[in-house]
């Protein structure tokens, strides 16, 4: 139910009542999405979409955090192994 799918914003339209709509691409499939809850979003940015609404704009720097951490683990593994590691 709380499924949220990340997609790339390809079109933004600002209309009456302050409603922002647009088109979002999910791996080649383009869907109409209500972007009113991420009103500042621009073309090319990624949003998480839930039941036809964007619920957040994806933060690219934060998205890398787990991989930065994994790199640290990798370096530690190498340090722990005097042979240079597997």
């Amino acid at each position, binding site marked *: 139910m709380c499924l949220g799918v990340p997609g790339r914003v390809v079109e933004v339209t600002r209309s009456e009542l302050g409603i922002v709509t647009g088109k979002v691409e999910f791996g080649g499939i383009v869907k109409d999405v209500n972007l*009113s809850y991420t009103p500042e979003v621009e073309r090319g940015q990624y949003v998480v979409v839930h039941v036809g609404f964007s619920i957040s704009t994806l933060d690219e720097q934060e998205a890398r955090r787990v991989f930065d951490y994994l790199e640290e683990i990798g370096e530690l593994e190498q340090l722990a192994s005097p042979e240079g590691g597997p």
Partner: protein
Amino acid sequence: MKYVDEYREPEAARKLVAAIHATATTTHRVMEVCGGQTHTLIRYGIDELLEGAVELIHGPGCPVCVTPLEKIDRALAIAACPGVTLASFGDMLRVPGSRGDLLAAKARGADVRVVYSPTDALALAETHPDRQVVFFAVGFETTAPANAMAVWLAARKNVTNFSILTSHVRVPPAIRAIMDDPDSRVQGFIAPGHVCSIMGYREYEELAREYRVPFVVAGFEPLDLLDGLLALVRLLEDHEADTRNRYGRSVRRDGNTEARKIMDEVFEISDMTWRGIGPIPASGLRLTARYAAFDAERRFCVENVRASEPSACIAGAVLQGKRKPHDCAAFGGACTPEHPLGAPMVSTEGACAAYFAFRKVEG
């Protein structure tokens, strides 16, 4: 797909699993509240990979599963009214009420539709002014802003043939109920990433302080959950009842303020009964007085049918994390996704459906 595929990378997952095992000195009992997270954990066998380090207790975070029987019966009764079109998300149509489900009502001639978004239901009302369109609005805080927007727009556009039947639930009071239960075995929580994308995580910081248990906000892909579980195991090992956000790409501390603004205008907090669990104070949302005209329960006076759940079904204990789906005698036999006895076997996010899909052999 960007932001999906890289979070499913097996080698990275292996490293995180190893790090969790290296960190845990005992088996930590942790609950993932959200059904979407349960699905990922079972689908990828993460629960089995972490055996000995983490015992995963599945929480009640499946709105379809906890929607009270009485609401489904009400939806069935409204759908049977002349001139009514009843719309909802697909899963909702297959949840058994006490006299069948909404799909069966459709087969009997009721106009029941599946919609992808609540605004699709509003569009149906606009294009069919001769019909009364009722949207069966279920969901956690993630879905509430979308449902609120449909009502907000209906009011602005003066769409008078649109209303909603609400069955909204809130996560923090459910966590409170779980922790207040003297039988609770939960030592830490994975907080639901998309609920927190809307609400932020200040409520979970309060819960962590109050109940002295750690919370980690996590996403929905295998690496998100493993990374979140590693952070949680570290907090548990250090006896720190703190809150961490490991889904920072989507979650900010204050959540989505734009979404919360409309949600707070359209909905207010109310008491709510959860199917299989019972009444939980302040755990629901209902329309505010300003939007009461869009309340389907006011618009359609239908009888209130009281019925009991099938006795073989242990959905209540499963939803509270006290039993696992395969502990149920009906699991996979009398109860399957094709012929469900209880709601957790219907929804793709229900724990029973996840175990049925990925653990059939053992079950």
